[in-house]
């Protein structure tokens, strides 16, 4: 759904733009292609960037029509570009591996000017210093996007039922304990559930899996879904945790728990296991969003302007606390930005443990045999529903 809130102000702007277009008449058709899109920007993104808090000041400042469509999984967004929508979108905001490993090699996105944008990375948190791996192409030559929101994403517990320490120590084995059957939920986030079921089964998700691992994955997926009390969206998970229907849920972290925490439920907490099957014995996975200019033949000049705009400390703070979910942003490395966060906001995004959670995590990556594992997991879900 295209979200373009119509305020009196932007109604007037659009009316003026429309009147100007009519007045321009035939001239409009002979104007160079890029000029036709000088006041238009289309963004394909995760929720937050499509909020009025983020977009309205930019619309007012540029007198532009900005459309943003929000989706909640990366493959769908990337496939939209693959299906020919590069002609529509100017910016795409997806998680880290997609820009570097998929979209850049497939020619779906365009590079940015390093001299203009790398100074912004120097103001970010230390881990994001230029050249930042996930913002660069595979050769490390071209800057292909900008970083902003990130967060560890494993599972969430109600600390009144399972202490933070016990959850961190037990880690993914919480789902290997039959005593926990019907005490947990599973967030309907199927791509991440594939990663997490690999972790529960005891192997790294981000590699090609052998037959034994696929068999273990199949058995684990069946068991996890059979033992789940509820599978649902973020609101259902948080509500079920707060009410006591469930004690913990699979796939979650700052991103999903922060709305409940911001609402006062400090006992709802994203957990990053102390150890796990990933490289170096790490137990967690962290996502980092990268926003890239789309390889649109008529790319709007506002795409680059918008990427600069969201680096502003105040706008970065707004992005962190835009509607929906609340997340840390790389720009918190800049004191000017960090000082804008209240104590309550820092609590909501679990700032107290963020650094150590990121240190215990590997960065989100592509699962080479994702399609096969997803089909197995979908079948396991159905089998669990048959009782």
């Amino acid at each position, binding site marked *: 759904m295209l979200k373009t809130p119509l305020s009196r102000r932007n109604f007037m702007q659009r009316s003026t733009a429309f009147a100007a277009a009519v007045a321009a008449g035939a001239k409009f058709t002979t104007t160079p292609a890029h000029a036709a899109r000088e006041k238009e920007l289309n963004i394909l993104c995760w929720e937050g960037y499509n909020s009025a808090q983020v977009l309205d000041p930019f619309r007012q400042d540029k007198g532009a029509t900005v459309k943003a469509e929000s989706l909640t*999984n990366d*493959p*769908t967004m990337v*496939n939209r570009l*693959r*299906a020919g929508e590069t002609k529509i979108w100017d910016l795409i905001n997806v998680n880290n591996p997609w820009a570097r490993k998929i979209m850049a090699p497939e020619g779906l996105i365009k590079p940015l000017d390093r001299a203009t944008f790398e100074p912004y990375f120097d103001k970010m948190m230390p881990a994001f210093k230029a050249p930042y791996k996930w913002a660069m192409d595979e050769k490390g030559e071209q800057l292909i996007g900008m970083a902003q929101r990130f967060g560890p994403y494993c599972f969430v517990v109600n600390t009144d039922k399972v202490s933070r320490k016990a959850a961190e120590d037990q880690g993914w084995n919480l789902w290997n304990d039959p005593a926990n059957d019907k005490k947990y*939920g599973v967030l*309907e986030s*199927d*791509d991440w559930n594939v990663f997490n079921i690999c972790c529960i089964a005891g192997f790294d998700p981000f590699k090609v899996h052998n037959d034994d691992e696929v068999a273990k994955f199949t058995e684990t997926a069946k068991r996890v879904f059979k033992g*789940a*009390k*509820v*599978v*649902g969206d973020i*609101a*259902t998970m948080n*509500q*079920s945790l707060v*009410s*006591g*229907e469930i004690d913990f849920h699979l796939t979650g972290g700052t991103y999903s728990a922060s709305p409940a925490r911001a609402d006062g439920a400090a006992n709802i907490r994203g957990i990053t296991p102390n150890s796990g099957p990933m490289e170096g014995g790490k137990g967690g996975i962290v996502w980092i969003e990268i926003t890239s200019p789309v390889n649109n033949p008529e790319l709007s000049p506002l795409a680059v302007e918008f990427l600069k705009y969201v680096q502003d400390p105040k706008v970065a703070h707004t992005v962190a606390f835009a509607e929906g979910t609340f997340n840390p942003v790389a720009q918190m490395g800049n004191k000017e930005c960090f000082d804008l966060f209240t104590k309550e906001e820092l609590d909501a995004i679990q700032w107290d443990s963020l650094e150590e959670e990121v240190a215990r995590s590997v960065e989100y990556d592509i699962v080479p045999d994702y*399609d096969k594992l*997803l*089909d197995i997991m*979908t*079948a396991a*879900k*159905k*089998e669990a*529903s*048959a009782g």
Partner: protein
Amino acid sequence: MAAPHETGKGLSQGARNALPLILFMIIGFAAPLLAVIAYSFMPPRSFGLTHAPTLDNYADIFTSNSYISFGWSMLFAALTVALLALICYPIAYGMARLFGRWSPILTLLFTIPLFVSENVRLYGWILFLIKNGVLLGTLKSWFGIEPESILFTPGVVLLGMVYVYLPFMLFPMTLGVSMVPNETREAARDLGASRWQVFREVELPLSMPGIMIGLLLTFVLAVGAIAEAKVLGGQTIIPITHDIEIAFTYAQNWPLGAALAVLLMIVVGTLVMLVLKRFDLDAILGKR
């Protein structure tokens, strides 16, 4: 039959007048349907209609456990229809014949929920049924009893479906019952029929058009239900519509989703045709 306004230059006036509507139906109804059918014959996980056709998606469906989802959808639709028939007939009878001036108020009460989005109403049920929610929280604080939560069970999915589709059964049924002329009942009683005979041999057959429309409408809607199982059921059951949604989203397998949708249309279409063959709606409605 000769067309009264034949022009002799091809299309009749009637056909020409109908042309915009025919074009609208082709573009708005037939074209998307044909696209879905065409996609179902494309190779798995492809995104265009230019590949060589294949039956792979159908083969996948018949070798996978999709029958579970088909089974859940059919079972829950059938149960919903059966329960609604039992619940709605007495209400319809009352609204058509007994409640008098209260009938419009009842109609309004049954209609008002339709103005609120289905998802919002279902989340309302969650707040009502959830542990420490309106129902269980009240029982706990007032009476000190703590029954197990029934949320996220198949029974609640059925409750949600009965609740959501009730108006779609009730209103056609009320129309059907009100179509029965009172004189036919009186004549039957005068001729010595018992109350049961009047119901079975007069009221039921004569109100059948409304009942049939209610049954069919509710079944077709219920077989396409998804929100009740997702929201209230917590996905303890996966209906076929949810399977289709997964294929089109996370799995990025549009051809598989299209093949599932085509099969669902065939199954539902066949069932509806079988019913319509047995109960000729045109005949019952007195058109021929």
